[in-house]
């Protein structure tokens, strides 16, 4: 029987319950992430063509897995690679390409639209793109700036994750206080440390 990823609402609940998610680059850090309390593992690099065994390991540890389709190796960010990730059992797909969000949702996975904070003058364009793509979650990078820029941005209709240069508990608290659902961080000391 093929794997069916959870609804986006379930994915969001898992993050909300334990908002410090593990961000890893391929197999590096995987063992530590599996042993941590982090509910979701975000795979930001690695070989996108040989993910299935890793995904099974992550599921066996009762965790969910999100894969960044733009950044993993071996894949082009398009509809076919999204189908490939669905076949590998991935629960959520991250991309900066808004046009992929419908395909990700169609594949039963949680669609995460990554928003890169560049300049204030480009925020409106980026926010409009997110409005059109209708993701399940928005991920903002660099997340450590979220408390500083939250006043510049309109409220999103979907939950926000923050990733990038998040290294301390104080930063996590500030980000969560700014309204984020959770953080993605490669700082292992933070993984799973903020259980609700």
């Amino acid at each position, binding site marked *: 029987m093929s794997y069916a990823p959870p609804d986006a609402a379930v994915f969001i609940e898992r993050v909300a319950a334990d908002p410090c998610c593990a961000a890893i680059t391929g197999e590096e850090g995987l063992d530590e992430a599996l042993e941590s309390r982090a509910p979701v593992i975000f795979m*930001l690099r690695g070989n996108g063509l040989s993910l299935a065994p890793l995904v099974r390991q992550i599921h066996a540890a009762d965790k969910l897995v999100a894969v960044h389709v733009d950044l993993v190796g071996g894949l082009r960010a398009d509809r076919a690679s999204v189908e490939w990730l669905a076949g590998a059992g991935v629960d959520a797909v991250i991309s900066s390409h808004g046009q992929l969000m419908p395909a990700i949702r169609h594949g039963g996975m949680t669609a995460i639209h990554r928003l890169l904070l*560049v*300049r204030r*003058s480009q925020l409106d364009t980026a926010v409009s793109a997110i409005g059109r793509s209708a993701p399940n979650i928005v991920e903002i990078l660099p997340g450590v*700036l979220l408390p500083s820029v939250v006043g510049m941005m309109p409220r999103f209709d979907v939950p926000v994750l923050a990733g990038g*240069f998040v290294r301390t508990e104080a930063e996590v608290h500030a980000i969560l206080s700014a309204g984020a659902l959770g953080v993605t961080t490669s700082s292992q000391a933070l993984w799973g440390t903020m259980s609700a």
Partner: protein
Amino acid sequence: MPEPNGPPRLPSILIASDGHHTVNAPPDLDAGVLVRDTDLATLVHRAASDCPPQAVDIDSVAGLGSDDYALDFVTGRLAIPIVLTRRPQLAGRAAARGNIGLLHVFAYDSTGLRRSLEGHPRSAGVGSVVTPGLVILHLREDELAAIPRPILAYGLIDTVEDARACLAVADAIVIRPGLAAKLAAELVGAGARG
């Protein structure tokens, strides 16, 4: 800030402009104008005006290429000595010709920053544009040390406090005209009080 008798120098503050309106750097600030997100005709018009820009984000100028011809045109005919670009070779060539080449370095997360720096030419005269600039306040010392200077912090620097903090870490910052006016007013006020 033009240096007619010497090599170009990066002012502490670059005021961002799309070139469609006159932007004058406040005389009390060590500041110049950066033209970005514009088109070729507007850039030429602004360069010929009585308040020409000191810097251009060459990849953001519609109609302008990112090759040697474009570089010659910008630094020679338009006399703009500071060139921001995403292309390492172009930044290197700008510096080799006696100008300041600044390569965009994207700092969205630590892994991305490392990868962005892999392509840096690290040659004399080639510095870095850290995007978004405000994140420079959150970089570790080793991360900062790995970024070739001069460092221009560009993006999301929106308050006087952020500008001052970023200037303490970077060599220069990019800000909007309104913030430049606030910084100048604060400087003048401090001078009057002191």
